């Protein structure tokens, strides 16, 4: 296989993901409605409960809705990453995973292509959210819209790779409910998405450290800083390392000789 074959495969997998996404309008709708509900109701309700002092990257006092916007963008990326993992489990149950796995390209590449395809869809949704969020005066500087792109891609890759890893471990579609309970909610709440970490530190030092270790916190912070044209290097590094680790484990999980596929077959 020549490099052009890899590229064609990547394009083909991305087109399929996009077509599937377009066909599932409900998915697009709910992916946008979920963060907008948080923004329109939750953020308004908590406007005066949570005091947000001046913290970087903001240079003045900001309304709560502006604070939680990056967290909601990361929420879109997380739900999409998990949904594409759900689609992998579905694909495996329905058999279309086999079509991907018997194509003549290395497995790590096929899984990475699947991951990229999911990230493209996530990023477009994140921009759709930013466009609608203008109604609530969430208006980062113009260059923020450009600077946030690499942050969205990196955060999307990390969350997608986590989804991929989970999909290699989830045996059946029904088990996805536990992913909601044990992965999505804890990751979301134990992060800087809804409240600044200094608030958390005042209440519980343990929880503060958990939040700091949570890669989702770093996804939120990378997006938050990027929206103001700034780079948060620690978060970027954490995301790169987490992506590589999650993806490597997922490739291992999908390896017929070693990972969970083999163990599942043995059951």
């Amino acid at each position, binding site marked *: *296989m*020549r490099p*052009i*074959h*890899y590229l*064609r*495969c990547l*394009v*083909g*997998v991305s*087109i*399929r993901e996009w*077509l*599937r996404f377009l*066909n*599932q309008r409900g998915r697009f709708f709910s992916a946008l409605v979920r963060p907008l509900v948080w923004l329109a109701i939750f953020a308004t309700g908590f406007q005066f409960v949570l005091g947000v002092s001046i913290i970087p990257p903001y240079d003045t006092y900001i309304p709560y809705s502006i604070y939680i916007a990056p967290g909601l963008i990361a929420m879109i990326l997380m739900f999409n990453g998990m949904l594409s993992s759900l689609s992998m489990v579905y694909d495996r149950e*329905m*058999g*279309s995973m*086999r*079509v*991907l*796995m*018997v*194509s*003549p*390209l*290395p497995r790590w590449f096929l899984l990475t292509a699947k991951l990229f395809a999911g990230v493209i869809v996530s990023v477009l949704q994140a921009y759709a959210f930013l466009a609608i969020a203008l109604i609530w005066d969430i208006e980062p500087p113009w260059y923020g819209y450009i600077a946030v792109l690499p942050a969205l891609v990196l955060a999307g890759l990390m969350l997608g790779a986590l989804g991929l890893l989970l999909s290699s471990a989830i045996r059946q579609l029904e088990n996805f409910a536990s992913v909601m309970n044990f992965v999505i909610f804890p990751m979301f709440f134990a992060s800087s998405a809804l409240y600044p970490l200094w608030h958390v530190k005042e209440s519980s030092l343990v929880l503060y450290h958990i939040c700091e270790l949570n890669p989702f916190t770093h996804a939120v912070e990378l997006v938050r800083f990027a929206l103001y044209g700034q780079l948060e290097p620690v978060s970027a590094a954490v995301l790169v390392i987490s992506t590589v680790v999650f993806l490597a484990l997922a490739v291992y999980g999908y*390896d*017929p*000789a*070693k990972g969970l*596929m*083999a163990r599942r*077959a*043995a*059951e």
Partner: protein
Amino acid sequence: MSVPAFAVEGLGHRFGRRRVLNGVSFSINPGEFTVLLGLNGAGKTTLFSLATRLYAQGEGEIRIFGMDIRERALECLRLMGVVFQQPTLDLDLTLEQNLYYHCALHGLSRREAAGRIAAEVERVGLAERRRERVRLLSGGQRRRVEIARALLHRPRLLLLDEPTVGLDIASRQFLLDHVRHLCREEGLAALWATHLIDEAGDGARVIILHKGEVRADGGAAQLLGETRTPSLRAAFESLVREPVAA
């Protein structure tokens, strides 16, 4: 003598402590249509999963046109077209979109893909419906699409795992005739797994797999002679009958 398109030698596999394949050996030459006949649970799907690298291979050897699948997996996969037992089409995509996806996985350009898709859907009589969603096609039509898809990258070996399950007689006959025609006219080697004895007729070579072992291998006439039975069904039943303990 030509190199066999597909050869297994001493192939074995276990799921935990349960042995599902044991010392399976046979080979298929280019242009040969071979039926792998066995009851449900005989080990046919496991054999296919090993041959397509969905399961890691432990005991024995699998060679595709002389290449060991463990050493040259990607080259082997390129020469193979596979129709799985489970339906694997994306129901919400159109027939054509499903086929373009397969072409992309095999590294074909859009232009190459367009030409091949047009030719293959024509051959399976679905050219009119290429822009319809797969969900709207009947079971038999979906199977035809899957065979068309398996041929898009011009494989030289076609593996079909129970391709006619759940289809009516006319659809089954269409698929059988189509694949046999491909073997005869284009030199394709085909391994057709089934539990339906009547699909093993018409002079095809038959390999009977039972409880993970090859019980017989040869033309229908040869099997009748060896088992001294009047029909293939009787021959099959005598071969898979358990020996009665004395």
